[in-house]
């Protein structure tokens, strides 16, 4: 049986070059970057170099990069941190979208419980935020707009530069969760109107448990975790040096490979979409063009997503589902509901996210598998109408 991994939006395999870059820091270079002695200084040097690599990949300066333990912490630091630094009196309004990752949604919901006002912008049928509508919601009390660069479930890419320009004009900070975008969407933060940007290494072939927050110079922000003087006190704790070195190398490679990789993935993606849409009763979720190069999300009518996922797994194909019953939650995906799917259709959705390790053969095998399984499951479905 083949082993085909089509869940690259969940996490990616570590690149060999990245592991190689990390290994010295899992072996001989074990000093604490805060130590003054030789062991500390060689660790510090690697820390500085990784920061420069991340800065270079984003068109930022090293002082603007704060390492974190991942995308979730970067989002929390951005949102809770700006909230702590900026809110006073009535100035407690945050704007976000209905389709953010839980690391953003749950954070703003927490702030809401402490007295913040939060606007959740709706999205259209493709998952797009309307910049005009965003602008209408900005008030004198708005301190932060946080809209993801690209969605993790349906792959839709937001008009984030336009959103950023509006925020800049109105004097409101703009944070974007770019966890899914790094390596697919080019950034040049010197030019782009973005004040804060989150990323997570394991989404672009780097290690798990390390991420970064870009914080534009002079942006007012406070720490969320308290402790030592690391990361300008914004993120205390002994640095995860092997992880940080891996992040630096991974983002360097991701940016170098971006064009070729995106072209390759788009080719596979379009073939996969075409093949799947040829099966009766399958619809594509997300924007037909403005989507991440590796993202496919479809609703397979009349069947339930988890049973499709499990059947694909038994054929050696790893995908994820936006259905209920996954990962302990009984609700169907908030993203699929926000683009207007009914409960049953949302339940019948699967996400296939491609990576460089996937081949045309994988695509064709997967289309065949989906077809066969769909037919089989529809035979036992009480809601299937021929």
């Amino acid at each position, binding site marked *: 049986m083949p082993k085909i991994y089509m869940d690259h939006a969940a996490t990616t395999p570590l690149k060999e070059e990245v592991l190689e870059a990390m290994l010295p820091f899992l072996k001989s270079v074990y000093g604490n970057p805060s130590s003054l002695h030789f062991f500390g200084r060689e660790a510090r040097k690697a820390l500085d170099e990784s920061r420069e690599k991340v800065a270079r990949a984003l068109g930022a300066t090293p002082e603007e990069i704060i390492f974190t333990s991942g995308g979730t912490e970067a989002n929390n630091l951005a949102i809770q941190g700006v909230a702590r630094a900026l809110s006073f009196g009535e100035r407690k309004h945050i704007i976000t979208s209905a389709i953010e990752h839980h690391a953003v949604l749950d954070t703003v919901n927490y702030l809401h419980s402490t007295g913040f006002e939060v606007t959740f912008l709706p999205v259209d049928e493709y998952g797009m935020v309307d910049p005009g509508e965003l602008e209408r919601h900005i008030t004198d009390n708005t301190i932060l707009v946080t809209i993801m660069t690209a969605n993790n479930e349906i792959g839709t890419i937001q008009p984030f530069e336009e959103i950023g320009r509006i925020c800049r004009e109105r004097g409101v900070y703009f944070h974007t969760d770019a966890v899914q975008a790094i390596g697919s969407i080019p950034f040049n933060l010197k030019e782009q109107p973005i004040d804060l940007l989150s990323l997570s290494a394991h989404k672009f072939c780097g290690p798990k448990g390390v991420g970064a927050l870009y914080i534009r110079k002079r942006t007012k922000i406070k720490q969320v975790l308290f402790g030592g003087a690391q990361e300008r006190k914004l993120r205390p704790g002994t640095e995860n040096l092997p992880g940080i070195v891996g992040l630096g190398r991974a983002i360097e490679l991701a940016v170098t490979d971006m064009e070729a990789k995106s072209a390759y993935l788009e080719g596979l993606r379009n073939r996969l979409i075409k093949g799947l849409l040829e099966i009766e009763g399958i619809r594509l979720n997300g924007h037909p063009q403005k989507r991440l190069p590796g993202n496919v999300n479809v609703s397979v009518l*009349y*069947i*339930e997503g*988890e*049973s499709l996922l*499990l*059947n694909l797994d*038994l054929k050696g194909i790893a995908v994820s589902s936006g*259905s*209920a*019953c996954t990962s*302990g939650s*009984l609700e*169907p995906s908030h993203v699929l509901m926000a683009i207007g799917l009914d*409960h*049953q259709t949302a*339940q019948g959705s699967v996400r296939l996210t491609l990576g460089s390790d996937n081949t045309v053969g994988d695509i064709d095998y997967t289309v065949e598998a989906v077809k066969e399984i769909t037919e089989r499951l529809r*035979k*036992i*479905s*009480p*809601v299937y109408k021929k």
Partner: protein
Amino acid sequence: MYNEKVLDHFQNPRNVGEMENPSGVGEVGNMKCGDIMKIFIKVEDNIIKDIKFLTFGCGAAIASSSVLTEMVKGKTLEEAMAVTNDDVAEELGGLPPAKLHCSNLAADALHKAIEDYQGRT
């Protein structure tokens, strides 16, 4: 996540399909979870002679329906009425905790089918 017996019933569900002229039909839908199950029974001499099911739902839902049909085929209506959702889960060798509440509805559907039959006669 699922044990082998669950996977077997999920992959090779027994007694799948619609039934012509059933003695009774039961359908349940779990609003929370969205799963839907439909059970058809053929009753003769107070015995479940034949049983079929259709299920829209996750792996646990499909396997529960399948194993239930095996459990009650040939049983009396009283015996079938005594089968609970917990019995079904137990017969499967256990289900993941997250699944116990949401997908294990097969016994409910069966009971409805029996009640449907009893209402008709």
